[in-house]
């Protein structure tokens, strides 16, 4: 330390946040050790953000797959309560998210609206958990002596490339319907505005969402989209960005194991961005047949 400089006790030194990724309920840095420096509107560096690699994605898929059995087996009521709890915790950390959104370039008013809407969106989907089955299932009147019914079942592991803009409401809007329906997911957060995705991971971690149900990576879509769409143990992929060529490649890659591909584009602030059909998108319809015995029925001998 040079002699000429005198220490002034004007201001406490701020603890800077280390932004990590979220895999299997843990917060590792990327295995690759790489990082990138997104900038705010004034050109300041937002942080050393993990530039996730395909191996991070692979690890996240393993976590999502192993969480899938337990999560899909939860009762719908329980999933509903967990999503509600997620909303509760987000409510408690409103200030932090508003602050981060502002750092990422949002106005105060818009940031507040984005956080409020994100909380409300979680509450909205929390309520659907134990209702969409009743809307989308059916008993089918077949013309033979069988009881035949169709129910929704979660597809399994869903890879999500979250919206680039609207880094919180967009993120919440694509995650909530997926996990409300009993799927687990690996999400690539907004590349340019990654702060609140990582903070949202902390919200998830302090709620009752089991580890591995939601996994959040930060990084570059161009680098990762190919891996997201070609991984053979991913059942579906949601693409929420605007690059048509990227979407096309995703569709081509997805064909290899018949991943279901969804292109979700919306004004995420609008209530039109939320509906149970988004839950339905990530459901397979399973139809079951069983004989109906007719002994003792009208006019039947046996």
């Amino acid at each position, binding site marked *: 330390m040079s002699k000429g400089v005198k220490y002034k006790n004007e201001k406490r030194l701020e603890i800077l946040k280390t932004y990590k990724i979220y895999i299997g309920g843990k917060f590792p840095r990327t295995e690759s050790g790489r990082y990138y420096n997104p900038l705010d509107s004034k050109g300041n560096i937002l942080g050393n953000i993990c530039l996730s690699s395909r191996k991070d994605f692979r690890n996240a898929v393993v976590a999502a797959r192993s969480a899938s059995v337990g999560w899909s087996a939860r009762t719908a009521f329980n999933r509903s309560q967990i999503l509600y709890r997620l909303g509760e915790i987000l409510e408690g950390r409103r200030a932090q998210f508003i602050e981060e959104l502002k750092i990422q370039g949002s106005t105060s008013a818009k940031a507040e609206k984005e956080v409020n809407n994100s909380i409300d969106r979680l509450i909205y989907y929390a309520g659907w958990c134990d209702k969409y089955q009743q809307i989308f299932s059916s008993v089918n009147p077949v013309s033979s*002596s*069988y009881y035949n019914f169709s129910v929704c079942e979660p597809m399994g592991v869903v890879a999500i490339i979250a919206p680039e803009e609207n880094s919180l409401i967009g993120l919440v809007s694509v995650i909530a319907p997926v996990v409300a329906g009993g799927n687990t997911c690996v999400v690539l957060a907004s590349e340019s505005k990654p702060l609140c995705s990582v903070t949202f991971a902390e919200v998830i971690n302090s709620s009752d969402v089991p580890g591995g149900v939601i996994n959040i990576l930060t990084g570059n879509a161009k680098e990762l989209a190919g891996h997201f769409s070609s991984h053979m143990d991913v059942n579906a992929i949601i693409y929420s960005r605007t690059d048509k060529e990227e979407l096309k490649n995703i569709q081509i890659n997805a064909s290899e194991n018949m991943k279901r591909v969804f292109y979700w584009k919306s004004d995420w602030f609008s209530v039109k961005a939320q509906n149970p059909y988004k839950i339905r998108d990530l459901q397979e319809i399973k139809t079951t047949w069983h*004989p*109906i*015995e*007719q*002994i003792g029925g009208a006019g039947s*001998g*046996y």
Partner: protein
Amino acid sequence: MTTIINNNEIIIPDFRNTPLIDQVGTEERVSRFTKRSIKNEAKEAGLSMVLSMIDLTTLEGADTQGKVKQMCYKARHLHDSVPGLPTVAAVCVYPSLVSVAKKELIGTDIKVASVATAFPAGQTPLKVKIADTQFAIDQGADEVDMVISRGRFHSGDYNYVFDEIASIKNICNDVRLKVILETGELGALDKVRRASDIAMHAGADFIKTSTGKIKPAATLPVTLIMLEAIRDYHEKTGIMVGMKPAGGISNSKLALHYLIMVKEVLGDAWLTNRWFRFGASSLANDVLKQIVKLRTGRYQSNDYFSID
């Protein structure tokens, strides 16, 4: 359910655990039999076989010696204008009329079957049933058609039902014992299967669906379940048991479908009146009409076939 053959001794299974039956699947299997198309030579041979398997039956309170004599004549002379017809397999009467039938059928191969064991309800003590059966045998019956105690069966008293059949079998010696399950009172195919297994293990030579006094009487699904029970019993013990659907089979086409079912479930070995019978009264004339039609090309009228 397992039957273990050990030094020729058949271990009696726990009848509470007899195989389960799915009714809808059974009916679908039956529909495959009824969709078999039986044409030309197969039809003629089949119809002739049906005639030879009939137990011509009268079991009325109003039965008289005269009625039984007429029926026995019909048994011997089904339709004399058509040469080469077989006779029926047997006539089936009440014990009190066995001696009449026996006398009428002297010199033929036609058997006399007698119902017994307080037919049709069977609601008497075992010793009465034994006496009833003994009387029929003493009168000369070649075959005895007994009824099981359905009440005891429904109560779950399978040992009683078993012992009763075994007691009757015990006095039968060379007389062939047909055990009537009265399936119309059993109420479920699982129970038909269970009653079949009890009867066979207790010594039945034949298992038979019905008395003819209760509806439904014989049906294809019930008969299929009994045939499958016979097949499984044979598979395990090597013992052949006969099958007799009775009641409700009055036309040729239906009778031929029964034969198809016997052929496909049990095989050709059972396609003889030693192992398969129809308990019927009006079936014979319908079969005769079809045979005459096949030979003449003309559809027939009832007026040309004797009613006895």
